């Protein structure tokens, strides 16, 4: 189950990396302390933080 959720998140990240729109949100749930994939129509906890943009801003390599 955990592996399945890990892979779901990985697929979502890979799709975003290729500029493909999934309609999903990646959010941080402060209750569980984990990232959660929220699909359209799913309830989003008001205390959660959407991290779509943080992921899409990209990661730096500074040497």
């Amino acid at each position, binding site marked *: 189950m955990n592996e399945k959720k*890990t*892979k779901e998140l*990985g697929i979502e*990240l890979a799709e975003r990396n290729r500029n493909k729109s999934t309609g999903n949100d990646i959010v941080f749930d402060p209750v569980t302390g*984990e990232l959660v994939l929220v699909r359209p129509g799913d309830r989003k906890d008001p*205390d959660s*933080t959407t991290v779509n943009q943080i992921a899409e801003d990209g*990661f*730096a*390599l500074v040497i």
Partner: protein
Amino acid sequence: MDSARLALESTILERYLPRRYAFVHPTDSSRSYLDVGLKTKSGNTYRLKILIPPDYPSAMPLVYVVHPKPLYDYHKQDLTSIGASGKMHVLTSADGCVQLCHFKGSLWHTNITLYKVALKCLIWLEAYHNHLLTGNDIDYYLRHCPQH
């Protein structure tokens, strides 16, 4: 970090990462860091050391994974041995700890908080776990910052 900024950072962290963080030497700018624990979907817990530079938030913090140590890649190679790698989004390690890429220095600004840095590193950790499952490089999951 000045006291006003420390109060701001603490308020945010207390709300979103309660009981998962601790400031170490918060008022000593020469050795101040944030110790934070993050959990992945796989159930693994990682401890990050977010080094707070003396001129933070003008300067960007550096992030190291201090537990578990070492971190291995899909091929069972110690990630610290590969040095800085764009494919794996890591920088030169220190004290046997992998340094994570997060924000780009030229795009860093003072409105970015330590909470946001921690979230970015949690995204890296989820990508790392997918790397362990599939063998795909981490940049298969995480894009590079634009080159400008």
